[in-house]
């Protein structure tokens, strides 16, 4: 059973213990290139920790992680990002005192290079600024380009996170609660932006999200986490019908 194309993300036997407490254990996950995967589970199930382990912020104590067939388990956070991994954070992924444009520019610069240059001045019309403006137009934030990121609405901040990911070279993106705190009116727009990220940019996407209905509609497959491991990984329909999921997640959520 050899697959011709390596998985976009392959997590094998991942475990993470901190001071005797087991946060993750035996997590196995294979994500095909171009998939859009939802990750659900009760609070404390280990969803964010899994994202932190994949992106390198936390070191797993067991198992391995590979991306496009390359083992990234020992790589640093920036090295993983340069290898094509992008992510957002639950609380804030923005730079509040930088302008909306600068937020995206920082990301665009990394792909283009020369980000440590002391001589290159970011200016209107240079490559990184153009890329950044295109990404802002794609999410409909170009009219706020020169506003401080801390001063835009919550829904716009979430759109900005997507624009930042669009500007990177990321092929695999991890979205940690991209709709948290967003008013219901803004949800459909945000879902469309996530679809853009997936379909137009062609990213493989993993989403942790508490808006179950939205996620079930958006994701091709859903992984259910409970007590630090993945207890089910299937299509949304089958997940909703799975009795284990009912008791582990939906039961406690109700």
């Amino acid at each position, binding site marked *: 059973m050899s697959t011709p194309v390596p998985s976009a993300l392959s997590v094998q036997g991942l475990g993470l213990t901190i001071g005797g407490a087991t946060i993750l254990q035996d997590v196995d996950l294979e994500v095909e290139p171009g998939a859009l995967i939802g990750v659900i589970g009760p609070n404390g199930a280990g969803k964010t920790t899994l994202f932190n382990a994949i992106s390198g*912020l936390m070191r797993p104590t067991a198992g391995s992680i590979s991306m496009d067939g390359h083992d990234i388990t020992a790589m640093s956070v920036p090295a993983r*990002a340069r290898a094509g991994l992008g992510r957002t954070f639950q609380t804030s992924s923005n730079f509040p005192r930088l302008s909306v444009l600068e937020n995206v520019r*920082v990301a665009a610069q990394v792909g283009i290079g020369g980000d440590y240059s*002391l001589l290159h001045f970011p200016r209107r019309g240079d490559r990184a600024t153009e890329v950044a403006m295109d990404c802002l137009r794609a999410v409909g934030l170009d009219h706020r380009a020169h506003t401080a990121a801390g001063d835009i609405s919550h829904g716009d901040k979430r759109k900005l996170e997507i624009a930042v990911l669009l500007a990177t070279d990321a092929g695999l993106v991890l979205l940690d609660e991209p709709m948290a705190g967003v008013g219901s009116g803004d949800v459909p727009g945000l879902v469309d932006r996530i679809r853009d990220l997936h379909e137009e940019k062609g990213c493989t996407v993993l989403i942790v999200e508490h808006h179950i209905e939205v996620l079930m509609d958006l994701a091709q497959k859903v992984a259910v986490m409970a007590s630090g491991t993945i207890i089910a990984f299937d299509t949304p329909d089958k997940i909703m019908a799975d009795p284990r999921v009912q008791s582990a997640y939906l039961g406690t959520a109700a």
Partner: protein
Amino acid sequence: MSTLILILITGVGLGALYFLVASGLSLIYGLMHVLNFAHGAFLTFGAFLGFEIARRIGSDTWWAFAASVVIGGVVGALFATLTELALIRPLYERHIEQVLVTVGLALAAVALFEGIWGSDPIYISAPAWMNETTSVFGAQVPNTYWVLMAAATALLISLVVFLRFTRFGMIIRAGVENRKMVTALGIDVRKAFTLVFAIGGSAAGVGGVLASHYTGYVSAHLGSTLLIFAFIVTVIGGLGSLTGAAIASVLVAVLQQFANYYLGGTGDLIVVVALAAVLLVRPAGLLGRTA
């Protein structure tokens, strides 16, 4: 009236000196969350080597003065870069240990300087113009103060231009705001750490040379004394805020000068009282973020 002007201008000049030290502290804290107690050592070393070079060229010429300022800046930058690479970086993310290691370095450096240059102050000379005064509305202002103000203004402007308009500066601003996200975008912030240390050390080294002209001597304790006030203005201005540090430097120094003249030399006491008052009313400092 002329006394008032004199106190005001010398206050601003002293504030300029504070800012040369505080700017580096503020940048380093803002990006790395490290309280750098070794900053005074960068300053003192810059001052000593600046003095050595000036002495060899002929201390009362402008060439010697210019060379000492350049050497002070270079030496400060090198010392700071080495400190970051050898002591701070291996203790990445361990803030208490990082602070302790800078305290240790500061103590060791003072002992080393005393070993080399002795514990008595060494009086220095300067270009004749710097020992003269300029009359401003009747107040006779020592010219050294203009040099201090010019240096601090140039530093503030170049730092603002660097942070606001260069790519590296944008990364540093982003790193101050949200270091986790900068890293997740693929940027190795450790390069920025080293650069920020180098910039801070350079400003401190230049500050050391100018401080020695302000006091009239170099001594192994030059940095330690200034560092206390630099820390105070950094905290009053709001840790990590460059503009805050600039404003607080001037406010604190002017207050100090006025208290020294009108309240019987209580300047240092007043500064500590001001620190306590600011911490009570605005714990995050004047321009600090309320976190």
